[in-house]
């Protein structure tokens, strides 16, 4: 994947950027943000494999994909292909915000009683109409438009997205489900999520990316911004399960206040090309973050997870565990960076990245990094790449399971640590079913030819 790309910077998405420039209306502060984002993207274009951060992931598929922006919220959309009943759901009655090709679909969404009781849940387009004071304060502040080319690109089109604002002391009773559905052909969407959690507030948010039945290729370039106030607690589940034509890039930028807790669970099971950057800044003492991830890749999928935990303050804890199951000719990339800044004493940081390769053509590139400038710290990381334990396989077969079932059972066990830890009722079971089939007999992973290897 180390081929160099031949994309002239600035040309890509040029027509769409010009259109967004002309068509999108907004308060002046947002227009200024968009302009800055546009300038940032035009300056450098898509990142290339010549950049260290992108050495294992080529975005040529996006450059060549011919993806077009589908227009702002005002643009008419055909939602007939998206049936509410076919959309994945959490427990009955939970709040759900649905976006189709980046635009809020009110008909498909359900808003709970919380909105209105000080808690603000809804779409960015609706918020802009109301223009609450916190919006300008927070939007584009954590993932600034000049942060990177892709964040710039997203910001240039910032028009709709999901918002959650929790005043101090409030908590959501149930999980908030934010569902991004790709329905059109060759559509580029730029979803945006902003979560502002005030002091001692708490919420669980499930952010999910899906392709509608019959959707062809598409591109999602997401930006998620989050700010956690003192002692706030956010559980963030991020599921990427797009179809084999889906390209997905995302920047998750989190800033944590004192004694706050951020639990992140990322599960990537679908998409042709997936790149997720998760950056957590532990900005005040006592903050704690737990990052969990699972990527289960098949076919020719390419998934790249970059995490960056920035220990900017003393007495913070971070605990990271990303697991990978790589089958067929899939390619998994993991890059975990932990930075302990000077004077961030009493830091405890752990990071692990175990990978299982299931097929001769599967490959993994992993790079766990530690960068430490303080001495009173405990930091460790580990990465492993290996296969399923033949002894364990043999044992299961000796107990009467056929080889495929034995393999699935082992993979299921490997993945269960992450899936079962999510803690959103019903979601873990749904993921298990999607990955391994609902019956004890395996289907999805075992169906691949790579399993028949001796």
């Amino acid at each position, binding site marked *: 994947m180390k081929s160099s790309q031949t994309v002239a910077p600035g040309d890509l998405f040029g027509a769409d950027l010009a259109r967004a420039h002309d068509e999108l209306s907004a308060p002046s502060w947002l227009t200024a943000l968009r302009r800055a984002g546009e300038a940032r993207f035009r300056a450098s274009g898509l990142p290339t494999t010549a950049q*260290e951060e992108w050495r294992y992931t080529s975005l040529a598929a996006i450059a060549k994909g011919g993806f077009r922006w589908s227009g702002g919220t005002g643009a008419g959309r055909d939602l007939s292909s998206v049936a509410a009943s076919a959309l994945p759901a959490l427990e009955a009655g939970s709040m759900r915000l649905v976006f189709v090709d980046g635009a809020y679909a009110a008909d498909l969404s359900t808003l709970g009683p919380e909105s209105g009781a000080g808690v603000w849940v809804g779409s960015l387009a609706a918020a802009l109409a109301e223009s609450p004071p916190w919006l300008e304060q927070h939007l584009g502040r954590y993932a600034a438009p000049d942060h990177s080319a892709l964040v710039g690109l997203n910001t240039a089109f910032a028009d709709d997205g999901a918002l959650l604002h929790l005043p101090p002391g409030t908590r959501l009773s149930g999980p908030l489900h934010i569902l991004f559905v790709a329905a059109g052909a060759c559509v580029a969407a730029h979803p945006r999520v902003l979560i502002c959690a005030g002091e001692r507030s708490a919420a669980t948010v499930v952010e999910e990316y899906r392709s509608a039945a019959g959707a062809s290729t598409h591109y999602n370039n997401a930006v998620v911004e989050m700010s956690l106030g003192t002692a706030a607690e956010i559980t963030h589940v991020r599921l990427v399960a797009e179809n084999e034509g889906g390209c997905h890039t995302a920047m998750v930028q989190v800033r944590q206040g004192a004694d706050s807790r951020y639990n992140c669970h990322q599960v990537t099971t679908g998409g042709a090309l997936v790149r997720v950057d998760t950056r957590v800044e532990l900005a005040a003492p006592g903050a704690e973050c737990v990052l969990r991830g699972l990527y289960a890749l098949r076919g020719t999928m390419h998934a790249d997870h970059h995490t960056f935990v920035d220990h900017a303050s003393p007495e913070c804890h971070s605990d990271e565990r990303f697991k990978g199951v790589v089958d067929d000719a899939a390619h998994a990339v993991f890059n975990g960076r932990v930075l302990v800044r*000077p*004077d961030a*004493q009493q830091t405890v940081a752990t990071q692990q990245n175990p*990978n299982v*390769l*299931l*097929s*001769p*053509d*599967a*490959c*993994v*590139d*992993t*790079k*766990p*990094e*530690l*960068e*430490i*400038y*303080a*001495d*009173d*710290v*405990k*930091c*460790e*990381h*580990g*990465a*492993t*790449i*290996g*296969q399923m334990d033949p002894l364990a396989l043999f044992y299961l077969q000796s107990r009467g399971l056929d080889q495929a079932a034995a393999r699935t059972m082992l993979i299921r066990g490997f993945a269960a640590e992450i899936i079962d830890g999510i803690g959103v009722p019903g979601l873990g079971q749904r993921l298990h079913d999607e990955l391994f089939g609902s019956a004890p007999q395996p289907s999805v992973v075992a169906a691949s030819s790579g399993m028949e290897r001796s």
Partner: protein
Amino acid sequence: MDSPSKDNTRPAGTTVAGEPIDAVVNQDYKYGFVTDLAADSAPPGLSEEIIRFISAKKEEPEWLLEWRLKAYRHWLTLKEPTWAQVEYPPVDFQDICYYSAPKKPSDGPKSLDEVDPELLETFEKLGIPLNERAALAGVAVDAVFDSVSVATTFKEKLGDLGIIFCSFSEAVREHPELVRKYLGSVVPAGDNFYAALNSAVFSDGSFAYVPKGVRCPMELSTYFRINAAKTGQFERTLLIADEGAYVSYLEGCTAPMRDENQLHAAVVELVALEGAHIKYSTVQNWYPGDKEGRGGIYNFVTKRGACRGRRSKISWTQVETGSAITWKYPSCLLIGDESVGEFYSVAMTNHKQQADTGTKMVHIGKNTRSTIISKGISAGEAQNAYRGLVRVQKGASGARNYSQCDSLLLGDRCGAHTFPYLEVRNSSAVVEHEASTSKIAEDQLFYCQSRGLSAEDAVSLIVNGFCKEVLRELPMEFAVEAQKLLGVSLEGAVG
């Protein structure tokens, strides 16, 4: 445009990158680069003329000159690497003198009385034998003990076994077929910025060839070095172990080396054929600069070994305590099936030293194995980075790697960093990497002190324990000195 000689001295297309043609031309004119074979040293600066001068001085054959020139022309197209976790003012490559004849004994101090007392004190701490101290301090060697006779004795013994061990220049003269066959075969002339620079201007170095089935009876070492002691700043080492041969090579020494050259860009190439085993140990203690970070050596080294044959093995062991900047990645290309690569490293940085060091293990053959043990110690305001690559190629089935990188921090202003790259293209590979970073536990220190050790001795004890896995890989006499060296290097690190 005023120099009549400009067109004659410089073939087209060889101007230094980024420099205006006029400046280069004037420089040529200014120094009047006339090939003067009688001169002892060349004027500072780098050009084809200087390379021709070096080559002529060393009476090299035409093919080697061509090889140097090719490297130089490639070097001009390269940019200085900036990816390492080190910071230093830019090096002016035109301000370096690329050739100077070995110093005459009369230039050095006449006896130990003239040597810097601080240096002598360090020798005392390291326990260096009396007769060697003078040699290390640069006192004319023959005034102390007869190195020539020692060297001759060893050379005869090695010669009986068919082992060739000589200076690189001598090897070019005496064994051109071997040099030509292997030179640049592991580290190509244009491999990287510093390797290309070295290939263009290398001064001298060591050459060793161990024939089939021979086990070298002694450690080839710089202590009893046969070639000239001052091999200069662009050293080139080439070691070849033929089928079934074994050789252990020691480089450097524990004594602090005072050296006026700021930039060192060495290249080491190892070739292990079927069943051969090369053990390469380095203790590097170049001048690290003073406590404020002034002076000190820049050590930019390219070391690589190729396990060409089946069941061959290359083992790197290094103890790096010196140099202001260390940029060094001894690597193994595991080409032969069942070949083995090992890397054991202790990198110790104090005051304002910076080290970016590690290894590359490239698994190409089947059932190849590699082990990486790296221990980094940072004190004062030093920065210490491990940077390593483990790459398992598509065809390398059954590859196995284990890496462990631990860092110890002494002081709250130093840094320790780990950048491992694991690239696996074969599903039967098993690759494991683990790293940890912490400081010395207070309770360990307290315990040692309660048993009567001073704080400094306690730290030294704990650090030595931390490094034990690596130190025990060193040959016996080196290991003892390396332990003491760690203690000495830590001086001033403990408040």
